[in-house]
């Protein structure tokens, strides 16, 4: 991702709860076609297509064409670049460790 325009696209794409929900669904089930992806969501195909186009422009969604099918995947790479920009590669791992540690403690607390 180049700084500037592309980064604006990234943050704009992430700024919408519906688009974040689509990313969550793609994380849970990678490689979905549009119909499966929006199954059960209060959303038209047309509306979903627009959201997906924005996510694809921001490189948060990868699209693979297979025959007539268009499959969608969550692409986490731009998120890593954001993390590297403000946290740094070393610190990111320490933070990841802390997050995992916190989650473990919380889980223990619930048990």
């Amino acid at each position, binding site marked *: 991702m180049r700084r500037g325009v592309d980064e604006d696209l990234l943050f704009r794409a992430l700024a919408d709860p519906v688009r974040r929900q689509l990313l969550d669904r793609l994380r849970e089930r*990678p490689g979905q076609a549009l119909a499966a992806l929006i199954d059960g969501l209060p959303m038209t195909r047309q509306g979903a297509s627009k959201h997906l186009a924005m996510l694809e422009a921001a490189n948060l969604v990868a699209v693979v064409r297979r025959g007539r099918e268009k499959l969608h995947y969550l692409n*986490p790479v731009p998120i890593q670049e954001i993390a590297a920009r403000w946290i740094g590669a070393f610190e990111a791992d320490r933070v990841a460790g802390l997050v995992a540690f916190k989650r473990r403690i919380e889980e223990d607390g619930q048990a």
Partner: protein
Amino acid sequence: MDKPDLVYIAFIATDAKTLWRLLTSEGDSPLWFFGCRIEIGEAAGGPYRVRSPDGALAVDGAILAIEPPHRLRILWRMPGNPLGEGRQNEIEYRIEPATDGVVKLSVLEFHHRPVPEAWQESGREGWSKILSALKTLCETGRPLPLLMGDRP
């Protein structure tokens, strides 16, 4: 094309040949692969291995297809990794032109049977870092300070 199970993409301001050289260079690989060194044959059927900085075999694979500077498909076995035990995944690197002076690097992952969520989580983190490191290296000439211990 068969359906990939996972896909990772980076847009990199470089040309296909430069990126290909980096991807297939044994000497440069530690700069973008968590300090690991790749060993790569020249033709399909040849070896593709990844050694950790301590020399241990992290990936023991083979070249399934090689089309410089656009496509490299690898049989990807991870003998020492509990998550990868007994698995025969395939990884495909693809380099395509994007916009002027920018190429699209895709990593496609194909699983022969479903992988656990922990594998996917580790892959999301690992491949994101690898692709970011390749991008930084191509665009600035500097390696990202990723060490083996950083690998999820």
